[in-house]
């Protein structure tokens, strides 16, 4: 009895602050999770608008809408915003919302640093986006910013780009430190590492990867800054430097970065498939080992982005074999998901639709990745639309679908309201069709010989480019439906129970929906 009264008492005294400043000063993991998710949605729409401009220009051969140098700014910003403003903050938002609840902790380990980690992000993106209005325009050298295009031949706004990247990096590093300290030290008694939910595991590994590689990115952009302003020659052959060195340093960060963008997705999908198959996830410990193997291997494959720079034969062979090796643990995960579904009792609510689509479409993206690993074949694929198709498959129906799945899955817990199932399914089908119509034909045009980062193309690529653009418009506008669905759910809807989903397992489902502002102020009993 007294426990109940105490909790009620707590809520009454320590509920959310009133007004707008609540959001500015909050140290509550749920609030901060919400902030990250809304920020990421906004950036997704901004990056998406840029994609619409890109696909509009590519709708037909010829230059119709923008000039080539503006086009290069669009592709650069589209990449930077989707990666650093869309996918990564969304996963951090999910981490904030879910990790403390899933391990029975009251909040993250460092709540005030948590607040800072979020609030520097809008600042960083304000700087990045404002570069569009600076003299010389925004960064135009691709999100991979190879030197010397990005050092000696770059617009003045590059310095702001570097500043912005430093801030984003700081945000990720602080967020990851918070995640690791929380998971390693604040699990409720009884939750051993191997008993941890897979989403928590996926973020533990992701956080370690971020702490390892974001500082290396910081190093790379600092070297860029020094080459541009302080007369050093890291990447300038005249001074004894090497443009290829830039690529090595960048991709040493860059490759683990792409696994950073997919591991949390793996965690989410494992939860959702388990719930809607009403069957325990197949091979829990294998799934953990697979994620660990992927993370470790991700450090020794970076040069597969550089097969045409003139690497020595021994290096090409090493990186080919190592890259192909990563397919093994990834394949194990796919088999385990299928085995979870097999002979389960499956229902196809919206989260499950997205999760199943993830498994199929991510696998397609993974298989095209395997093709890319074969060096002699890569000589024909590298820097063509085949690569663009590959990474969009793993990132859009891969990472982004997992984020959408997560939103549909957990939004009843966050808001206390069920989303509209019919609208959710409509959003799914429009997105599924859109994403495939956009990106599948890009395999064809890549194989047929269209390079990437081209604002215009020869006539034999016209048909599939038009198809791809139509798909892009469909996919892009469908996300406005998603926005509508989310807003509608926040404002009201059928009331959700604490359990929400029949087969859902995990501590977050043991609290009410919406989750109380403070949960697990006293650790739960776990057997």
């Amino acid at each position, binding site marked *: 009895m007294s426990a109940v009264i105490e909790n009620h008492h707590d809520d009454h005294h320590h509920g959310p602050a009133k007004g707008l400043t609540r959001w500015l000063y909050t140290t509550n993991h749920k609030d901060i999770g919400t902030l990250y998710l809304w920020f990421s949605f906004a950036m997704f729409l901004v990056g998406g608008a840029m994609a619409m401009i890109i696909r509009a220009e590519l709708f037909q051969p010829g230059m119709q809408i923008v000039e080539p140098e503006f086009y290069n700014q669009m592709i650069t910003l589209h990449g930077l915003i989707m990666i650093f403003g869309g996918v990564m903050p969304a996963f951090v938002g999910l981490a904030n919302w879910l990790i403390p609840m899933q391990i029975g902790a009251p909040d993250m*380990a*460092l709540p005030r640093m948590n607040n800072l980690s979020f609030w520097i992000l809008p600042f960083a993106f304000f700087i990045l986006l404002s570069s569009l209005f600076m003299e010389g325009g925004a960064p135009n050298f691709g999100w991979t910013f190879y030197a010397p295009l990005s050092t000696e031949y770059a617009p003045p706004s590059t310095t702001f780009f570097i500043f912005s990247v430093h801030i984003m990096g700081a945000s990720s*590093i602080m967020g990851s*430190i918070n995640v*690791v*300290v929380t998971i*390693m*030290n*604040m699990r409720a008694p009884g939750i051993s590492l191997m008993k941890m939910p897979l989403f928590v595991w996926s973020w533990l590994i992701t956080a370690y990867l971020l*702490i*390892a*590689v*974001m*500082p*290396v*990115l*910081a*190093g*790379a952009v600092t*070297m860029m800054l020094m080459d541009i302003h302080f*007369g050093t020659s*890291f990447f*300038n*052959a*005249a*001074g*004894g430097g*090497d443009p290829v*060195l830039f690529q*090595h*340093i960048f991709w*040493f*960060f860059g490759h683990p970065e792409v696994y950073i963008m997919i591991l949390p997705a793996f965690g989410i999908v494992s939860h959702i498939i388990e719930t809607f198959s009403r069957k325990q996830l197949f091979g829990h410990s294998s799934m953990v080992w697979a994620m660990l193997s992927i993370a470790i291997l991700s450090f020794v494959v970076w040069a597969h982005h550089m097969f045409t720079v*003139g690497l*020595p*034969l*021994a*290096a090409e062979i090493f990186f080919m074999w190592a890259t192909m090796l990563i397919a093994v643990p990834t394949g194990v995960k796919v088999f385990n998901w299928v085995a979870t579904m097999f002979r389960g009792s499956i229902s196809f609510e919206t989260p499950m639709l997205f999760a199943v689509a993830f498994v199929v479409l991510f696998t397609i993206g993974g298989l095209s990745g395997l093709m890319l690993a074969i060096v002699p074949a890569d000589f024909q694929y590298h820097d063509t639309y085949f690569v663009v198709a590959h990474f969009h498959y793993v990132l859009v129906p891969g990472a982004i679908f997992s984020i959408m799945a997560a939103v549909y899955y957990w939004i009843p817990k966050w808001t206390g309201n069920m989303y509209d199932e019919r609208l959710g399914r409509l959003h799914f089908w429009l997105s599924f069709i859109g994403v495939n119509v956009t990106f599948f034909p890009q395999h064809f045009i890549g194989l047929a010989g269209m390079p990437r980062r081209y604002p215009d193309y020869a006539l034999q690529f016209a048909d599939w480019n038009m198809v791809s653009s139509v798909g892009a418009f469909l996919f892009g506008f469908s996300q406005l439906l998603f926005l509508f669905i989310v807003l509608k759910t926040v404002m009201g809807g059928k009331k959700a129970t604490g359990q929400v989903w029949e087969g859902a397992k995990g501590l977050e489902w043991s609290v009410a929906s919406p989750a109380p502002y403070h949960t697990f102020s006293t650790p739960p009993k776990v057997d």
Partner: protein
Amino acid sequence: MNKGAKKTLTKLIIAVPLMFAFGFALVPLYDVFCEALGINGKPSSKPEQSDEFVIDNGRPIALQFISTNNKNMPWTFEPSEQVMKIETGKYHTATFYVKNTTNRKMVAQAVPSVAPSNAAAHLKKLECFCFEQQELMPGEDALLPVKLLVSNDLPSNIKNVILSYTIFDITDYNDEAMAHHEMGME
């Protein structure tokens, strides 16, 4: 925060600057790895005293020269001979013709590159115009030498080695360096 959490936090906070330093360490590590693994495609930019590689009965190979001007480097820059038939294990001298065709004094840096990459370690340069900066007055020209030796342990399937030089305009770098140097002197 409990003690365990503080320990984890401290370790992670230390890890961050360590990884930042690692990023910078990659710069020299890059060269170290290339040499240690014997896959050094980058030629040396320092003189190599290689009398130990001088032998009498080396095998014949062809040495081809390529010259490239970097952006905004309008000098005339050409090898005196496009191809030299040489023997491994012997010193040979090749020359490059340069001319400053502009209105102002300029300073150039020549950067060598060797192909195939596994030949680079076997091309030893005793003297090279790439070791120093080259200064030319407006309209001045010069014949720049490189004295080199291709050692006999060059892999036997390589019969043709390419030595490429790219010249860069470092007049401004040079001026800045001189200015800094003078400031330091005061």
